[in-house]
């Protein structure tokens, strides 16, 4: 069992950040374990979802943001549906991923790489291009044979295109990405300034 010294490692600002960004109050969780009991991913998690909730309450920023669990969650919404305190647990997990991503913490690198390959395809074409995503993923992870066994069926049944479907409004989509990146960059700069002066 891991022992955590709460008096030296609790980060109150992290609790506030999760609360603010998710719009949920982690303090409402009374540890009944219903979310963990229903979670299809518990067997793959390093920390079951109810424990993630408890770790947030205890301000354990590093343990939470470096966990595999936040990346392995598929947002299936079972936890949210069954929480007797009506905490949107899946949204809390998603918020943790958002924060971890922003801080450059990815304990499941392949999953993060897959998401990025998807978003790159979206940004370039306006729509996603399945073969492009797979190729982008393979190039980054060097898992060159990923799903090669599916190739024959995919080809014979013509389940994928060999050309991306580019939309007319892809400039508009790219502007969304650009404005978004600028906004996050500005926030980062402001935070750094505040930390520096504070």
């Amino acid at each position, binding site marked *: 069992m891991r022992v955590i010294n709460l008096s030296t490692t609790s980060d109150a600002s992290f609790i506030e950040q999760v609360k603010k960004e998710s719009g949920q109050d982690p303090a409402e969780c009374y540890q009944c374990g219903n979310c963990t009991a229903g979670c299809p991913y518990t067997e793959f998690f390093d920390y079951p979802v109810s424990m993630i909730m408890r770790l947030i309450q205890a301000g354990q920023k590093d343990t939470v943001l470096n966990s595999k669990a936040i990346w392995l969650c598929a947002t299936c*919404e079972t936890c949210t*549906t069954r929480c007797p305190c009506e905490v949107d647990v899946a949204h809390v997990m998603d918020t943790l991923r958002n924060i971890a991503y922003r801080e450059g913490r990815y304990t499941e690198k392949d999953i993060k790489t897959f998401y990025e390959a998807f978003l790159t395809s*979206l940004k370039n074409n306006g729509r996603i291009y399945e073969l492009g995503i797979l190729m982008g993923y393979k190039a980054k992870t060097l898992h060159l044979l990923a799903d090669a066994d599916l190739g024959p069926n995919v080809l014979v049944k*013509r389940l994928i*295109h060999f050309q991306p479907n580019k*939309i007319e*409004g892809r400039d508009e*989509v790219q502007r969304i990405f650009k404005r978004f990146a600028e906004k996050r960059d500005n926030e980062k700069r402001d935070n750094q300034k505040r930390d520096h002066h504070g």
Partner: protein
Amino acid sequence: MADKDYAYYPGCSLEGTGSAYDASIRLVMQALGVEVKEPHDWSCCGSTPAHAVDHLLAGALAARNLVLVQKMGLKGVSAPCPSCFSALKTAHYRMAKSKAFKDEVNELLDVPYEGTVDVRSTLQFIYENIGVEEVARPVKLALPNMKVAPYYGCILNRPPEIAQFDDPENPVSMDNLISAVGVEVVDYAFKMECCGAAFGVPRKDMVNKLTHKVLSMAIEAGANCIAVACPLCQQNLDLRQAQVNAAMGSSFNIPVLYFSQIMGLTYGFTPKELGIDKGVVDPGNLIETGPIVPKEVEKPKKTKAAAKEAS
């Protein structure tokens, strides 16, 4: 019929691996006399990767499409893919709930979203806006060999506060649609246990285990066919069925059809027109049609909430 005047947002999967879903929905709509209106130049909804990375980006990528529906002057939009449905509806919900979030999202868009579009899954649209009685009307043929386990996946009706559709634990809409076209359905416990979602590429081990459970439960319940309403579920259950067998030592060989393909067969469309040949597991004689045999009409199943209300 204003209620049926909704836009149709196919989403990227339905141009690729899920093209049979798109083809079968269009034919079903044609048989039901509902015009399919696709927003011009729609873009990707952002799906899981967008919301996993940043909620604001996810909101904006989805909301661009809601703006297109707004421009069409329509009351709402239906999306066949649960991931698209969830992305569009979540954006709408969070923008309606928080003015600050709405403003932030609109700052990223060329044209702001006013918050007027009703988002539904195409399953919900067919079930509620068209209804089981009308769905039964075009039926010409029976599928006497088929015993279907409807598989809903995770997010067609969850989280309930956002999805606002069917029962979040024991949904019945797909069961009732399939029964309405005269095809036998079986009940089972894993109707909405996760199949592994988008982890097929980066964490195949999880998909193998989870999909294995879903397939086992459906077969144990006596089904010889699974109906789905999601291109990703279809991919995991069908295209990856051989991977599941190899990893888990099973020998499943159960076909996985879209609910719209099953409806289309009873309406007299051919398997080829409905894209059934795009499935990997061969449905064999399950898709053989026969004449309709009149039988006692089963009452549509009710959700727990509806049953409570009635009593």
